[in-house]
């Protein structure tokens, strides 16, 4: 059973009202993309913020990740809007 640490930043952190959480991955959730889909099923706000038409970036262990990236036990997974620094 894989347990991951989830982090949320910027607009996502505010609208979800959550900065970080520890999550035991369901059997069927093995990739970053599948995780996003799973999280979008948590309720109205989650569905709206993680809507497939919205651009959300994901990072796994602090590197930008594609939806196909496979998740492993102990991973640090972050979800955030496109970056706006500089």
């Amino acid at each position, binding site marked *: 059973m894989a347990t991951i640490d989830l982090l949320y930043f910027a*607009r996502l952190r505010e609208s979800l009202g959550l900065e970080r959480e520890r999550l035991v991955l369901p059997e069927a959730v093995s990739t970053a993309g599948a995780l996003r889909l799973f999280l979008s099923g948590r309720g109205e706000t989650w569905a709206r913020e993680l809507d497939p038409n919205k651009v959300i970036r994901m990072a796994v262990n*602090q590197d930008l990740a594609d939806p196909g990236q496979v998740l492993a036990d102990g991973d640090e997974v972050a979800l*955030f*809007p496109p*970056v*706006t620094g500089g």
Partner: protein
Amino acid sequence: MPVRVQTEDFDISAEIALLRAGNASVGAVASFIGVMRDFNDGSGVSELTLEHYPGMTERALEAIVAEAHSRWQLIDTLIVHRVGPMTPTDQIVLVVTLSSHREQALAACAFVMDYLKTRAPFWKKERTGQGERWVEPRTTDDEAAGRWRAGGPA
């Protein structure tokens, strides 16, 4: 190849002096400072708060610097990016590139800023007359970063 994330302001003269101290092979110093302006997307902006992803930010900046050093003949590169609350006219970000030749230093400095804008996990929230809002990314930033792909300027 120092990268720093800090709340304090920075002094470009002191940073450059330290970066190139005693190195007589440096023939070109290129730099960029990003500064907070008092307007954005048609609204006046009175305050800006910069959030980041500690740990990933430093990794991302180091990766951008490493990429710049693989593309151009650089002697050293410095990135200083501030986080926290800021007001108009404040300095936000500093990039300095050192090379023996100006073409290398200038191109690398532009590259680092273009990649920083699309790859480093910073987010800006601004206060306007209508309240607070998260800054939306610009498509021109993606285009600017895209021009450095293979076949672009080098």
